């Protein structure tokens, strides 16, 4: 029998009192009411730990870096007690054949019952040669492990959307997970990286309730991605008042005015930064004086400057924003109207003096 979370925690010398505290903290961080605390405790006491296989494709490891800094719950608790992180080539001790053997073992022993967590994405061009894991293209490993998984978590903007390696012209054809795996439930946890507490929160939810968190149309957990940064931003009163920073060193910047005119993407970005914040709730980009760059949104790397409010339109091939395109069109048509009016006036006067219409 595999140990339950509770057994593992007790074995580690955690008291029942601390365990219950942990359950209420977890409930709070998931936005659940006190009524859920006993349910979480019950689940942890009775459910065996779920094996998680964590694969790495084309990525920068920022998701792993974020994950290990989780404070509520501590990443240590998540990794050691809640899940059984059986394979994660970046942080596991085993290497080479030993590591691949574990992968195989979990896949057969827990067929259809393990969770596949993917960090990064597979490149498809050059037959996948831009990312080789264990001597094979990553796409092969991904498809192989996904086959018997219960569900897939797409960590970060790489696995969810493609991220920087998929930026135009995307030479390696880096492709997000949902565009190569179609037959499994996929939970997108975008962000570059995603917030640590969001990552552990998603895992905790899945394990305690034995189901996927409620997802939005684009496959993101609603509890963390249901609102925009702008909806909960502490600078929002300055936005509504019409008080904006206009340069990085002006009076407005010093007074902590809204960063909208500096290109803040908070109004178009779904993430939990303005509520959960970063590094254990210490701060988040806007609090540190820089606008949101929209790192959890699809294609944020290709949407023009981080510092423009009205961003460039890539479709036209040239660098121009809506105001430049529209202004030019209006100018041309305006000039045409003036010219047309002039000719019309001449014609009208000729008609008048001529044959009277």
């Amino acid at each position: 029998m595999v140990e339950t979370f509770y057994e593992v925690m007790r074995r580690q010398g955690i008291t029942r009192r601390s365990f219950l505290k942990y359950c209420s903290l977890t409930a709070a961080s998931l936005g659940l009411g006190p009524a859920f605390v006993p349910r979480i405790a019950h689940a942890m006491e009775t459910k065996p730990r779920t094996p998680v296989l964590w694969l790495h494709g084309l990525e920068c490891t920022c998701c792993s870096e974020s994950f290990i800094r989780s404070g509520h719950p501590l990443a240590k608790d998540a990794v050691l007690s809640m899940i059984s992180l059986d394979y994660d080539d970046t942080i596991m001790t085993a290497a080479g054949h030993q590591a691949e053997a574990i992968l195989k073992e979990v896949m057969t022993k827990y067929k259809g019952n393990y969770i596949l967590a993917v960090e990064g994405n597979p490149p498809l061009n050059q037959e996948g040669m831009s990312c080789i894991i264990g001597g094979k293209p990553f796409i092969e490993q991904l498809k192989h492990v996904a086959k018997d998984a219960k569900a897939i978590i797409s960590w970060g903007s790489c696995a969810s959307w493609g991220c920087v390696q998929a930026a135009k012209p995307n030479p390696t054809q880096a492709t997000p997970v949902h565009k190569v795996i179609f037959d499994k439930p996929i939970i997108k946890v975008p962000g570059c990286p995603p917030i640590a507490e969001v990552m552990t929160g998603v895992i905790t939810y899945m394990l305690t309730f034995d189901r996927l968190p409620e997802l939005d149309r684009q496959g993101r957990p609603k509890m963390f991605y249901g609102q925009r940064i702008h909806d909960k931003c502490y600078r929002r009163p300055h936005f509504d008042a019409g008080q904006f920073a206009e340069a990085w060193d002006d009076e407005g910047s010093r007074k902590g005015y809204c960063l909208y005119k500096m290109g803040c993407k908070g109004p178009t970005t779904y993430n939990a930064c303005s509520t959960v914040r970063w590094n254990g709730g210490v701060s988040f980009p806007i609090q540190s004086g820089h606008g949101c760059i929209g790192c959890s949104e699809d294609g944020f790397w290709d949407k023009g400057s981080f510092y423009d409010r009205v961003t460039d339109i890539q479709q036209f091939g040239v660098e121009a924003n809506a105001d430049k395109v529209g202004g030019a069109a209006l100018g041309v048509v305006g000039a045409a109207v003036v010219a047309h009016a002039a000719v019309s006036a001449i014609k009208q006067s000729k008609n008048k003096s001529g044959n009277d219409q």
Partner: protein
Amino acid sequence: MLSSQDMQEAAAHGRSVKAVYVYEAPVRLWHWVNALAITVLALSGWFIASPLPSQPGEASANFLMGYIRFAHFAAGYMLLVGFLGRLYWAFVGNHHARQLFVLPIFNGTWWKEVVFELRWYLFLERNPKKYVGHNPLAQFSMFTLFLTTTLFMIVTGFALYGEGAQEGSWSHTLFTSWVIPLFGQSQDVHTWHHLGLWVMGLFVLVHVYAAIREDIMSRQSMVSTMLSGWRMFKDDKP
């Protein structure tokens, strides 16, 4: 109702009738309410994208951006409600009320008339024709430029509105939930919604110019028709 309307028209195309009642009161009312709403939307939309210089004083003492956005959303609702009313009138009103919504694209003569009007605007025709309703070219541009743009702005506008109103609101359910995924993300919807401002601006520029020009140069009344509903003809010739 229709038949009498048709009789009047037949008569107008014939000889001596000098005035025909074309735009019923609801259409005229809608026209001016709609024009007002679009003016407010264009101005407030511009200042949403490029806000005015910062307001002095405490944030709690100011609400400028809030008021501008409120004006935008209120006018947005006006546009929507007006549009629905106008759509209803297309069913119950006279047949000119339908011109905005249906292009007779399978009608060869209608296309000929479009070309004729084009030639008139290009100074290739010496004398204009008489039209009781919209002239075919005007109808064409109202459908392609005005109607489609308005629909596009309503759909993208309420999709953006639903983001603020959040899940569970009618605008989120009806629009945001599918429009944002369709465009990819919210920033794209903003960009296209913003482009719509300029397309609408183009329509208004050309439309107002053409209305005034036709008022002077054509053989029928224009601006006063949108005020009183009566189309007056300036001569008796067919």
